[in-house]
């Protein structure tokens, strides 16, 4: 017995040893190692994000520009399907068979009992056809989701579009999660944070399949989704729609602003597209189509294209000349064609005459007087100092320095300064350098050619300053935000550095441009509206087949009306259309008449514009 008696202790020891191992292991798992707690949370807790309705966008008169609409996602629960005919179903849902197979396999891999997305964001018009057939396929069903709709199909460039966030959006703002939608351009982008509202979160406990079984901590950490705010824009939907009709088959831009508030009434870039093309599942297909279009309809010419302002720039030369007192309103200058080419016209005996007839040599001389004031002995230093005085005036009109418009990616024009010519002209790599240039080098700017470039928005702002005789508000799109003020910056008057009395002779000239014989824009005349305007025509060149070719001139017109109580200021820029008075001027006048009177008196003028197709590019030389 002695031999085996010890064995009872060995057995007892073995029992205790196993228990000890268990206790150590349990202590490690339950107290020391947090891995299992995290895994448990991962397994048993989940959250769903609740999406608020996005804010509605109205025009200045309360018409809906952007609303929300129910679109449809098609979901599938794999184990409820009964071997559907994949070819027929893919055809019904209008997706490719490869896409269908891919999504179905993904769904099966994810879970056979839980729903997965098969097709997404089907517009209501397409879904109405699908709904009639879908009931024949058990396991497939629709899930509603809200997306944008543009009831008027206008203003695509103003309103912008929405798309799924990309990685850079998520990086910039942790609010976004993969799959969320974000405003990518236009108003949707610039007022994204106002329109989007705030997502809500609901935490819950889930069972093994992933279905909700209980609220987590009785909803203590849940948040309610906050609806996006509605906003009203300064856009006039009717005017916008009318302008887009006029701009059909033309390339260019129109910007109209209410002078006394800086509110943008219309912004058109042509060619354009129906904003509804870029919603839901149509987005991908249509976007690439628009992107490949040689007329670049996605490009917003109104805010991003920099053009030579042409003769419209002469207004500013006249104002600066008067303010600098290098001329008076009655300065008479001969039309010396050896200085600059000009058309045949009587001698300009005043500033007003010169504006009316758009005399090139006149403004060559005026600008030379501004820039070469003779204050310094060195001709070059004189020009350098004079140019900065000149540029400073132009900057005070909001040109070349940014107009703080509430819009994503607005370009700023170019007002050349001394620094520009010293360092960047004619090329950045080989500039002229300091005191190596004078007015004779840069004279083209006096008639709005050469280095000076403005965007259509800046050009419209020139019209605004003319209308107000010396001041403006930053042009903006926002009129009202639900439960909030519009930004302070748009309530602050900006002052141009030209005194009001110096505007009168120039404005007088603008009135005569439209109303007197010998004026360059007689086509813009509308009885009783007292439209004041200025034409512009710019040469432009493009390289084809390695040769620099001159194309047909750009046609430009800026205007405001009525003369004494301006309600609208406008810039019209039509690419490669010809003389400013021929196309841009009548378009501007139609817009003004439509806005002020609500109807067009001269239907032949209107019809001429509607019928015109100015798209083909004509090579002149």
């Amino acid at each position, binding site marked *: 017995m002695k031999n085996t008696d010890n064995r009872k202790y060995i057995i007892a020891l073995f029992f205790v040893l196993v228990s000890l191992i268990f206790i150590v292991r349990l202590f490690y*798992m339950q107290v020391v190692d947090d891995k299992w707690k995290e895994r448990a949370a991962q397994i048993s807790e989940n959250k769903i994000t609740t999406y608020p309705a996005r804010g509605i966008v109205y025009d200045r008169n309360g018409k809906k520009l952007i609303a929300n609409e129910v679109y449809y996602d098609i979901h599938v629960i794999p184990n409820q399907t009964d071997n559907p005919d994949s070819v027929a179903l893919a055809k019904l849902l209008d997706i490719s068979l490869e896409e269908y197979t891919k999504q179905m396999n993904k769904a099966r891999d994810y879970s056979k009992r839980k729903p997965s997305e098969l097709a997404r964001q089907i517009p209501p018009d397409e879904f109405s056809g699908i709904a009639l057939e879908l009931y024949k396929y058990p396991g497939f069903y629709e899930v509603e989701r809200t997306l944008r709709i543009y009831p008027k199909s206008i203003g695509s460039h103003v309103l912008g579009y929405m798309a799924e966030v990309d990685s850079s959006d998520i990086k910039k703002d942790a609010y976004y999660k993969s799959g969320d939608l974000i405003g990518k351009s236009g108003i949707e982008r610039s007022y994204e944070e106002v329109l989007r509202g705030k997502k809500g979160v609901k935490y819950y406990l889930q069972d093994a399949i992933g279905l909700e079984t209980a609220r987590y901590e009785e909803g203590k950490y849940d948040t309610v989704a906050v609806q996006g705010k509605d906003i009203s824009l300064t856009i006039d939907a009717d005017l916008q729609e009318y302008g887009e009709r006029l701009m059909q088959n033309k390339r260019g831009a129109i910007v109209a602003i209410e002078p006394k508030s800086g509110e943008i009434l219309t912004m058109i870039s042509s060619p354009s597209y129906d904003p509804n093309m870029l919603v839901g599942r149509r987005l991908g297909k249509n976007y690439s189509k628009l992107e490949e279009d040689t007329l670049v309809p996605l490009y917003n010419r109104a805010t991003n294209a920099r053009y030579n302002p042409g003769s419209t720039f002469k207004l500013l030369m006249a104002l600066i000349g008067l303010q600098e007192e290098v001329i008076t309103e009655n300065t008479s200058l001969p039309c010396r064609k050896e200085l600059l080419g000009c058309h045949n016209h009587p001698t300009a005996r005043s500033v007003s005459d010169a504006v009316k007839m758009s005399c090139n040599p006149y403004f060559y001389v005026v600008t030379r007087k501004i820039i070469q004031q003779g204050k310094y002995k060195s001709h070059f230093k004189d020009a350098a100092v004079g140019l900065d005085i000149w540029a400073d005036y132009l900057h005070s009109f909001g040109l070349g320095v940014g107009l703080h418009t509430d819009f994503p990616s607005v370009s700023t024009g170019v007002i050349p300064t001394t620094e520009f010519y010293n360092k960047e002209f004619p090329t950045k790599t080989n500039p002229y350098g300091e005191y190596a240039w004078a007015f004779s080098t840069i004279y083209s700017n006096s008639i709005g050619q050469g280095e000076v470039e403005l965007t259509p928005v800046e050009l419209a702002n020139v019209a605004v300053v003319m209308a107000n005789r010396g001041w403006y508000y930053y042009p903006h799109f926002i009129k009202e935000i639900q439960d909030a003020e519009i930004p302070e910056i748009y309530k602050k008057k900006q002052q141009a550095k030209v005194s009001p009395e110096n505007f009168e002779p120039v404005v007088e000239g603008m009135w005569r441009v439209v109303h007197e014989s010998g004026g360059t824009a007689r086509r813009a005349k509308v009885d009783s509206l007292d439209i004041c305007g200025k034409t512009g025509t710019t040469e432009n060149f493009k390289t084809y087949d390695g040769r620099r070719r001159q194309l047909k001139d750009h046609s430009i017109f800026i205007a405001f009306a009525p003369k004494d109580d301006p309600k609208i200021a406008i810039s019209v820029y039509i690419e490669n259309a010809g003389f400013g008075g021929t196309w841009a001027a009548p378009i501007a006048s139609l817009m003004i008449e439509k806005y002020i009177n609500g109807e067009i008196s001269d239907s032949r003028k209107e019809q001429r514009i509607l019928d015109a197709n100015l798209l083909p590019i004509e090579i002149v030389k």
Partner: protein
Amino acid sequence: MRGKSEKIWADIDWTLIIIYLLIVTLGVSNIYSATYNPEHPGLFDLKTEHGKQIIWIGISIFLGLIILFLEGSFIRKSSYWIYGIVMFLLVAVLFTDPINGARSWFSIGSFGIQPSELGKLAACLALSAHLSTITVLRTRSKSGFGMFQLKNLFHTHWKTMAILATPAVLVLLQPDAGTFIVFTSFILVLYREGFAGNTLLFLLIAVIIAVITLVVADNSFILPVLKIKMGGKFGMLLALLGMGLIFFLLIRYFVLKRNRPPLYRAMIGSLIVAILFVNFIEWGYSTFLKEHQKERIDLVLGKIEDPDGKGYNINRAKAAIGSGGFAGKGYRQATLANASQKHVPMQSTDFIFCTWSEERGFIGSLALVLLYTFLLIKILSIAERQRSKFTRIFAYCVAGIIFYHFMINVGMAIGLAPVIGIPLPLFSYGGSQVLAFSLLIFILIKLDSERKIVLQ
């Protein structure tokens, strides 16, 4: 002499009864929490698992009381009868309709009973009856192996083997691998009784070699110095040979010359056996085990990690236990191991420990492990105070079976043992196991209460 009725109660081990009642009570409360169904909130609702468990406990205690009023000698004499009846049931159950792929249930209405649980009881009784009648051949003639010893071993043990192998094989035919493994617990009894002297030691070494073989079998190594690539099995064999060489040198230099030959023989013999064993394990693993069994073993060995696939159960079970923390989530507050979430499978039977640990935390786990340890030690101490050989052997049988269940069930839940579906004794939901373990304990109590009067 005291009166008979007095005698029954006088020497009853109340500690064991209290532990028993504690475990079944905690078990019911835990099943209630694990399977709580708002539509059946009643404690005695027979549609619920805890309700059924209460009924089974009631039946068990009733039968236990009857046992207490029986004569101990009657139980001893009935051992083979009971064994015979249960073996008949184990054969009969093979002719029932399979439930979940196994023919292991007799169903009566919504109640079912597994004869395999009673098979353990029967084996305990029959083994005790058999072993208590034979005297052990404890003198060793010579060290070393020979045909004579093997023959002798067979003659003394064939009956033991038959008693254990019959229910084990019948259970395996159901198939119920979990219960089959429990039958190996009787090795503990044989060890205690001196029949399996070095068997346990050999078994331990064999398990270690087997585990290492399985872990390294698929791997390949690059020898550090020679830069030779070799398979895991080859490395294993090389290591064994290396160990043999070391032993050879040890013997060569540290053992007296005249004592060396038997040691050499033993060494070479063990080496051959070990090498054959390594090959056998690898061959057996790839030939006999089914895919899901291989996967379970691989999961425990850490060879594969697959939290949502084959490792799903064990992963969820560990997450439930681990998330309990120090103090637990509170009664009926489990978020993983409960009926409405269903993250942990079989949370009222095989994985009952998860609900307990998640809700009671480390404090609770510790308490439960200590409770079982205490129960086991208590049974061992009861065994050792017997003068009756039958009772002592029976007590060791009970301890061995409970220990196996406890070790595998808890070990499985915390990822230290492969997933083998056997219940936590008296704690898991399951009528048959409650009945079987209750009968084991009550028989033990009855036999123990007669320790002062029985001289055998």
